[in-house]
């Protein structure tokens, strides 16, 4: 059929050992993706400027008058900031799928599930940024928390942000890229109200107060503030949080499989 095979040198056959098998998680990928997110001006506004600005706006008035309320708003804003950060990373999968990036990744040994895993890691790491900044602002502003309370708020709001990473991924796989952020922005604002992040729940309309306890933000808010309020860290809230995380995780897995087997 062709004589070319005999006239060209043969490319070496390489043993499997040196080629390796599937890759599940690449620290280099996580590092570069994190750097990319931090370079994005729009992301920085959402991550850095907004949580701190909201904290100053909502909590600034209590700074000297009501230290308890000041710390309460600070904890709410760490939750809000971490939520924005993790959700936006999760939702970035939508754009990366539509641009063909995930398809390009399928031409590498990275398992598709490894891509999702990497996004979770990037999301949770990026969530550290607003938490740290809001708490730093609080400390500079004179918030009086015990060492245990500082650490408690930081760890609780950070750990709880996992549910929003799952939420962002679910949205990223559900909604087309062109309108994912328009959709998620208002949704996050609504969830924030349900969680009592912007205003105490008892100032909201009755109907909202009734729905609120079922929302993931509500549980996250309660748990993240619990080191200060010394209440709210209950089995019910933990179960609600785990339930939502699983629901978004399973939903993402379902959409992900549909995505991977398409065509």
């Amino acid at each position, binding site marked *: *059929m*062709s004589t*070319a*095979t005999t006239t*060209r*040198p*043969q*490319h*070496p*056959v*390489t*043993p*499997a*050992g*040196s*080629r*390796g*098998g*599937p*890759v599940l998680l*690449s*620290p*280099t*990928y996580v590092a*570069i*993706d994190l*750097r*990319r997110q931090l*370079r*994005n001006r729009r992301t920085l506004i959402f991550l850095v400027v907004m949580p701190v600005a909201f904290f100053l706006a909502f909590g600034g008035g209590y700074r000297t008058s009501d230290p308890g309320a000041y710390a309460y708003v600070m904890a709410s804003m760490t939750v809000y900031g971490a939520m924005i950060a993790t959700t936006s990373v999760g939702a970035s999968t939508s754009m*990366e799928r539509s*641009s*063909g*990036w995930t*398809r*390009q*990744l*399928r*031409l*590498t*040994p*990275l398992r598709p599930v490894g891509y999702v895993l990497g996004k979770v890691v990037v999301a949770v790491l990026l969530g550290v940024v607003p938490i740290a900044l809001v708490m730093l602002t609080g400390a500079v502003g004179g918030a009086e928390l015990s060492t245990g309370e500082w650490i408690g708020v930081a760890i609780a709001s950070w750990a709880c942000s996992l549910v929003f990473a799952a939420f962002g991924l679910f949205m990223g796989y559900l909604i087309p890229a062109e309108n994912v952020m328009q959709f998620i922005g208002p949704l996050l604002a609504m969830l924030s109200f349900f969680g009592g992040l912007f205003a105490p729940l008892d100032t909201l309309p009755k109907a909202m107060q009734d729905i609120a306890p079922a929302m993931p933000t509500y549980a996250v808010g309660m748990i993240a503030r619990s080191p200060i309020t010394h209440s709210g860290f209950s089995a019910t809230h933990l179960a609600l949080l785990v339930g939502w995380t699983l629901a978004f995780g399973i939903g993402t897995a379902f959409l992900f499989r549909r995505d991977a*087997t398409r*065509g």
Partner: protein
Amino acid sequence: MSRAADDAGHGSETAGQTTIGGMTTDTPALHLAGLTKHFGAVKAVDGIDLTVGRGEVVAFLGPNGAGKTSTIDMVLGLSTPTAGTVEVLGLRPYDAVGHGLVAAVMQSGGLLKDLTVAETVQLTASLFRSPRGTAEVLGRANLTDIADRRVGLCSGGEQQRLRFALALLPDPELLVLDEPTTGMDVESRRSFWAAIRQDTGRGRTVVFATHYLDEADAYADRIVLVRHGRIVAEGTPAQLKAMSSGRTVRATLPGADQSRLAGLPGVTSVEVRGDTVILQTRDSDAVLRRLLTETGAHDVEVTSRNLEDAFVALTSDTPDDAAALAAPTASTTGSLR
């Protein structure tokens, strides 16, 4: 050549280790059997059988919608065949990709605009177990000077060279290019192919889809013509050109009698444009003899058909053209299906 000898030695040293899928040097780079892909009622790929030997450079040539990209997607494991099988170096596509044995340069997309060129390469390299060095592939794809440029600021040709650099990372046995130069200007196309050609000199197998004839002609050892999801012809560029053995006779002949011209020996088509007549014929000598002796034809020109004519005829939607062109030569040149 010394590299080949080294590799042979290397192969025997590691013979005790697990080799991929029991692959030997006889294993073809690519083997497609009865490959079929239907999207609902559309038969994008309709039964393709093809074997590509190791080290071959094969062009998949066909018009848009011929099924080239659908075939490539199945070769890369990006989509599942409706029927038939794909073997890449004796492995399922998914495993071949997992072992870095096959890599591809896709038509468009697949890059993150806000990463730099170098970051994209570093990131992708980290997904392979033993990749080539970042600097090496940047150099081979002629990207060293723009390594720090954001991908979104790169031209189409530069982005395509970046995709090529990424494809080189696993040092694949089989490199697949899906219409790699679509939308590039002449200079970019030339520079892209120069990089590919340099690379194939090392013995890599390359399969590329294209609808540019000159690319297929210039770079392929073998051309596979596809149309409506089927292979309609295959052979070396020379064999395919020979298939279109007819000639075109052009002459000035005022007041030409079209039906009389159609009756000349071996004439398959007659076209009259003002005072010019254009005849397609399988026997140009006889046509010339009659034209010059029996008519007032002058300024006569005879040209042989080129690869483009073969391409148009073989992939055209009117089956008569293909049949008329192919029939007289099928037994003597490259295989026709």
